[in-house]
């Protein structure tokens, strides 16, 4: 194998695996199949296309399910789960298990479209569910069945209380369900609906109008920040709360209490995250909170996440995700050939000690090992170079950012007699470099002694580069990165800040004032901030 990354076309598999056979999964599969690719959908339950009843427009949902089930390019495997995955974008080998029997498949791309689960939040109020304390889903099933609706509500003059957003903030999806149910109940003669809520989550199309309609029809909204106290007295339930308008405690006695449900991530998310090396967010949904991942990208090339796998959102947004996932898959798979530019990392097998530092420092899951050395997938590698900086053997070189090239740039930059007044700034091409260009274009006054060296990611800034700059006489060295949570390689900026901070500690020992080195973050569109950061450094060391 060659040590030099080369521009090349690589043939890939164009089959696709979709994990999750709910509405989003089937919609995604159908769309991808319409683009001409074969799709395998795996669903952990015994039926695909089961969906959550709380959402609107059942006919269109059924038509999506049927269209996908009838599509000859889609294979739906129920009671099937992913148990193993090896390989990379364009060439994933996945093991699928059904009843203990495992089948292997080779796919080019994967879409994760797992479902969510729904749990009633009655324990938050220390009450059990009963005939008089029901979940939102139960309420909906009562309202959708005219006999049940009649027996529960008609002629009963019931006070119905919905409890939402206690103690956890709710979401527009839950509010939409409450408003729809409220309107139906309020229409039943003699019924009175109260909705007790902290923040009403109206940030979805049409909800403010529905909210007004509910109020116009007589639904009463009580806004209170503290969780109300719920006590069951036989068939009645009393709800005690602090009335902000009366500024005193008040109690509503209700015949029917409707408890909100929490939408939780699918139980299988953690397992899939491990098998596919996919990042989860703090709530156990896929995709970190990072603008570079939106809408459906994951930390890995060729793996996309859609719908409630990544976020609880209205059905229409899940479909938006499905179409995005499909178009991203089409864009990646094309006609079965991926063109790779020459900016990926390559491991020198003679230097590699398979310590796997690179494997651990790769955000994109692009590194594996075979025989005596680690190998980097040219398709999966994003060229950030974090692994190259971490490698204790300097065994990894990245495209146009090879160590000797950058060290030579440092040399050139600091040639001549003025080296001692120079500030060398290693600028991430995604943020600091852009900001520097903007500061320059807008004439914001960058000092002449600022020398910029472009890096693909702050994670590429090797301690050697910084030391080289000091050895060659630089007055100051800056490592300028994207803000935490904004790194395209997830944590290249964090690694860079660790390196700088560790190095700072030892600089004093070798007689270099540690103020001469800094790590700062800046956004691509903030030319003025860039100028300020540089000025601060200038002031500090002059």
């Amino acid at each position: 194998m060659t040590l030099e990354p080369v521009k090349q076309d690589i043939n890939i598999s164009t089959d696709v695996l979709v994990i999750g056979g709910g509405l989003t999964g089937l919609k995604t599969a159908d769309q991808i199949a319409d683009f001409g690719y074969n799709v395998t959908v795996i669903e952990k339950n015994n039926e695909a296309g089961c969906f959550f009843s709380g959402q609107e427009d059942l006919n269109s949902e059924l038509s999506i399910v049927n269209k996908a089930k009838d599509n000859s390019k889609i294979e739906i495997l129920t009671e099937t789960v992913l148990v193993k995955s090896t390989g990379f974008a364009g060439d994933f080998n996945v093991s699928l298990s059904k009843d203990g029997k495992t089948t292997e498949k080779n796919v080019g791309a994967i879409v994760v479209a797992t479902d969510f689960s729904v749990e009633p939040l009655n324990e938050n109020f220390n009450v059990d569910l009963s005939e008089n304390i029901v979940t939102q889903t139960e309420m909906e099933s009562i309202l959708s069945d005219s006999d049940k609706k009649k027996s529960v509500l008609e002629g009963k003059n019931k006070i119905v209380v919905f409890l939402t957003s206690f103690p956890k903030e709710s979401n527009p999806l839950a509010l939409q369900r409450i408003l729809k149910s409220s309107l139906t109940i309020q229409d039943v003669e003699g019924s009175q609906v109260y909705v007790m809520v902290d923040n009403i989550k109206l940030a979805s199309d049409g909800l403010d109008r529905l909210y007004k309609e509910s109020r116009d029809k007589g639904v009463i909204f009580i806004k209170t920040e503290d969780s109300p106290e719920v006590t069951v007295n036989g068939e009645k339930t009393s709800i005690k709360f602090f009335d902000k308008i009366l500024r005193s405690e008040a109690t509503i006695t209700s015949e029917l209490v409707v408890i909100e449900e929490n939408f939780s991530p699918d139980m299988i998310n953690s397992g899939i995250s491990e098998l596919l090396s996919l990042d989860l967010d703090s709530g156990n949904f896929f995709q970190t909170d990072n603008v570079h991942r939106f809408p459906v990208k994951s930390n890995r090339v060729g793996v996309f996440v859609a719908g409630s796998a990544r976020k609880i959102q209205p059905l229409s947004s899940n479909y938006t995700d499905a179409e995005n996932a499909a178009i991203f898959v089409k864009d990646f798979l094309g006609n079965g050939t991926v063109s790779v530019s020459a900016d990926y990392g390559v491991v020198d097998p003679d230097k590699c000690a398979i310590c796997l530092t690179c494997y651990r420092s790769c955000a994109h899951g692009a590194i594996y090992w075979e025989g005596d050395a680690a190998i980097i997938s040219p398709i999966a590698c994003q060229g950030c170079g974090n692994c190259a900086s971490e490698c204790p053997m300097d065994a990894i070189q990245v495209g146009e950012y090879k160590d000797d090239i950058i060290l030579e740039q440092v040399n050139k930059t600091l040639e001549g007699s003025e080296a001692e007044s120079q500030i060398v700034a290693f600028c991430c091409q995604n943020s600091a470099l852009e900001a520097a260009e903007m500061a320059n274009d807008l004439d914001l006054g960058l000092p002449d002694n600022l020398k910029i060296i472009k890096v693909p990611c702050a994670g590429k800034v090797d301690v050697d580069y910084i030391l080289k700059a000091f050895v060659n006489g630089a007055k100051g060295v800056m490592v300028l990165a994207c803000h935490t949570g904004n790194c395209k390689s997830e944590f290249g900026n964090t690694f860079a800040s660790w390196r700088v901070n560790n190095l700072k500690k030892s600089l004093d020992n070798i007689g270099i004032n540690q103020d001469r080195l800094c790590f700062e973050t800046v956004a691509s569109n903030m030319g003025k901030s860039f100028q300020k950061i540089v000025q601060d450094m200038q002031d500090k060391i002059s």
Partner: protein
Amino acid sequence: MNTELKKVMVIGGGIAGLTAAWELSKLNVHVELIEKDCFLGGHAIKYACKATDKCQQCGACSVEAMLKNVDNEPLINVHLATEIDKVNRNGKFKVTLKKSTMDFSSQSLLQGFSKNNSPLYVITDKDKCENIPEGAVELSELGSEGEIDVDAVIMASGFKPFDAKIKSHLNYENFSNVISGIDVERIKRENGEVLRPSDGKVPEKIAFIQCVGSRDDRLGNLWCSKVCCAYGLRTAQTLKYQNPEAEITVFYMDIQNVSKDYPAFYEKCKSDFKFVRTIPADIYPLENDNMLIRHMNEDDGVAIKEEFDLIVLSVGIMPGENNSYLSETFGLDLNESGFFSNSNGLNSALTSKEGVFLAGTTSGPSDIATSIAQSGQTASEVIKYLGGA
């Protein structure tokens, strides 16, 4: 089927139009991108980064990235300072373009954020222009006329920020330190931090007034703009970060969820700011360019007066000003709020007219991330329509 020779017109060069154009070009579709303003990027390109010590996921930087994509894409043909004159539908669309009717006369030199292929400066009045920057283009050189045949049209004509002047009691026009959410973005970009307009000082006592123009029954604006809690609270966080001593009060009705890590973010906001659940009725001037807000104390119901040195009005998203003209020209329906209506509640891209699609805030308020997502969906629908499926 081969879509190589297909051509799509995208109306609007904001983040939605840019994303739709870029997604289509990646799939080998020619795009005619029409922008009535002199620059690409729409409102969002003017937004400032709202990072504190970490990124707050406002998405402003992704607009710049998308603009760069489009600038470097040969399949996308950009028409700046251009509007739609008329449309003939005969199988395809025959669209007649005209020079923009926007009034550019307020400044003799316009500065945009566009890079590379697009001009950064546009001269509207050469005689009044003192220093003409290198590469500046005269307005008369911009603007396309004539007919273009296209196979499909994407409406990405965007929104109009609520004009805070309409709510005169907030004194946006009268007090220099009452500024809108849009002004904050500009000030932050120009200075790298938020300074108050009257004297350039770092503000110390700041009020954010939410829902300005949104959720306003009297104005007939029965919608939540979805973005104001996000930008208001994120901006408040940047103010607190730049000046930890700053005291910030948020006047609000209901706080909406902001980004994926919302619970943690909201808890931090609650510990950093004072939240008052009311929208103040009046703002009074004080001698030192400060202002007084009178509101009711929630605990005892007594009216209290509080002094602020900066007031930010979180203005909402209103329907685009050309919506009625464009909807008539293309035979599309507007919904009761004045945004374009989509023909299928579950698909924001589709309209009642075959071959005409929607993207971004044309169909209602959405943030940058959602606009990007919707534009991807729109591109997917267009590809299907063109027979690329």
